[in-house]
Structure formats: C-alpha cells, structure tokens
C-alpha cells in the first residue's frame, strides 16, 4: 500500500522548492549562456561544454577552467583550482545539515550535489525551521536545469546577448543575495553585523592576491560567524 498523504506532501514541498528556485533560474540564465558562448569560442565541443555543466555545476570554476584551458594549463592544476574554489561548500553543507530534516544518506548524497552559493542561500534563509529533502530537490533541480540548458543554448546560439541586457543581467544574482539578506537584517542587528563584517573582510582580502578566489570568502565567513559568538560570550560573561 502506498502512503498517499506522504507522497502528496512530498509533491507539495517539491513544487514549493521549484517556486523558490525560479529567481535562481533567472539569475543563472546570463551566466550559463555566456559560459556556453565562451566554451564554444575556446574550441570545446557541445558535448564537452554541456557535459561540464552537468558534471561540475559550479559557475566560477567552469569559467576559470575555460581560461586555463585556453592558456594551455594542465588538467591537474585546473582540478586543484576547482577544488580550492569550492572548499567553501564544506561550510555551506555543514550549515545546511543543521536545517535539513533527517533523511536517508543516499537522498542527502543527491541533493548535496545541488548545493551552490545560490541554492544554499535560498534554502538557509527560509523561515521554516526544518526543510525537507523534497523541497531541496525541487529548488536544486530548478537551478540545475537552468544552468545546464542555458549552457547549451549559449553554445548553440553562439552570439552575445545585447550589451545593455548583459550589463543589466550581471547584477541579477547579487540582487537575489540582497533580497535574501534584507528581510532577516530588518529583524536582527546580529544579521547586519554578520553580513557587514564578512563583506568588509572579504573586500580587504580581495585586494591581496593569494586570498582572492576561493579562500577570501571562506576566511571572512569563518571569522565573522565564529567571531560574533566569542564576542557575545564575553559580553555574557561580563554581565
């Protein structure tokens, strides 16, 4: 006997996930499109271009891989660079783990693949106390679909979007991050402090070459997220 109520609840969560993913799908469009375009210009085949989006699903690493391929860099260096760029997902995955409802490990292994800066940010700032795997899958698949499909379209169309549109679309994902942050910031000074400190630190780190790229974001996030806990502890001790 199939537990129908459970299935329809999962279905409902999956749909809500898709809805939550739409802003990401829009934001990914110009980036994936441009990636496809650049991959074609760099001499990759359609299969390689879309294959990289299907298997790697990480914007910044894919862009950097293209420029490193063009510069004749070896595969090993490119893989190491991709690793450094994406170590920050460790932090996101550990943080998301606190928010996800308990589920089988193989399901976690599937939606884990769909963690990006954007899907993580949307999931982590949801007001629900716990999120289900179905929600996360709906969210992730929507983002993933946009990324993969628009990579292919960019490759096939092979011409740039009009310049003003390109210039405008460049702000899309940042606007989404702001829209995710503001509702929480309105309610909590702690949120403003956390985001402000990390933003300031990352801006400083970005001026120092070895910390630009992946490490700056990781360091500034850890210092800000851990620092406030220690500051608050001292305050509590002092009282």
């Amino acid at each position, binding site marked *: 006997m199939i537990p129908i109520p459970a299935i329809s609840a999962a279905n409902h969560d999956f749909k809500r996930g898709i809805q939550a993913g*739409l*802003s990401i799908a829009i934001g990914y469009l110009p980036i994936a499109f441009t990636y496809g375009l650049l991959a074609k210009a760099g001499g*990759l*085949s359609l299969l*390689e271009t879309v*294959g990289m989006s299907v298997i*790697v699903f990480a914007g910044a690493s894919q862009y950097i*891989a293209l420029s490193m*391929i063009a510069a004749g860099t070896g595969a090993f260096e*490119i*893989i190491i660079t*991709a690793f450094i760029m*994406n*170590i920050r*997902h*460790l932090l996101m*995955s*550990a*943080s998301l*783990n606190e928010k*996800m409802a308990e589920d089988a490990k193989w399901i*976690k*292994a599937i939606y*884990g*693949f769909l963690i990006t800066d954007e899907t*993580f*940010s949307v999931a*982590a*700032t949801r007001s629900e106390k716990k999120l289900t795997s179905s929600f996360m899958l709906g969210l992730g698949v929507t983002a993933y679909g946009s990324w993969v499909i628009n990579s292919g379209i960019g490759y096939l169309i092979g011409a740039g979007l009009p310049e*003003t*549109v390109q*210039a*405008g679309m*460049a*702000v*899309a994902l*940042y*606007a*989404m991050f*702001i829209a995710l*942050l*503001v*509702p929480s*910031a309105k309610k909590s000074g*702690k*949120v403003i402090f*956390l*985001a402000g*400190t*990390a*933003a300031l630190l*990352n*801006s400083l780190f970005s001026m120092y070459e070895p910390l630009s790229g992946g490490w*700056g*974001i990781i360091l500034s*996030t850890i210092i*800000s*997220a*851990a620092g406030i*806990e220690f500051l608050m502890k001292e305050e509590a001790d002092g009282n």
Partner: protein
Amino acid sequence: METNLLWMIAGMGVVTYLPRVLPLIILDTSIIPRKLQSILKNVPFAILGALIFPGILHINDASIWYGIAGAGVAVFSSLLNWNIILVVLSSVAAVSLFSFWGL
C-alpha cells in the same frame, strides 16, 4: 570527446562534489557542540555578505556605480517586501537603463 578533457571534467566533478556532500553525510547534528551549532547557523548571513561584497562593485568594468545603483534598487525594493523575483527584475532593469544611458 577528447579523452584528456573528459578526465579533467570528471576530476573537477569529484573535487566539487565531495565538499558539497561530505558534511551532509558525515556530520551528526545531534552530537555537534552547541557553540559550533550557533556558528554554523551564523554562516548563511556571513556568507551572503561575503558573496555580495566586493563582487557587486565589479559587475561593470566601466565603474562601480553600476553595482551601487543595482544594490540600491535591490535594497529599496526588498525593504518594501517585494517578491524576490520582482527585486531581481527591478534591479536588472535599473542597471540596464543605467548602462543604456551610458552613465
């Protein structure tokens, strides 16, 4: 498909997948110390700050004002509690106009 490139893509896939999935599978939330749990709960807001700055200032090589204009519209429309997609679209429209006028 060129074999070398295929292996490179597979390698990138592995090193990208592992950090995404290992904490989810290995960490048992019930035995993580409370202090670390609070820190992990702070991560989303800290990371959002770091993802926005300084990246948004560099969306257009011509000037940082493109990013500032887009950020201003996004903050303003978020404060009005607009739906997230509307926030994104209005910010995109603002920066497009900004670039169209060649400011």
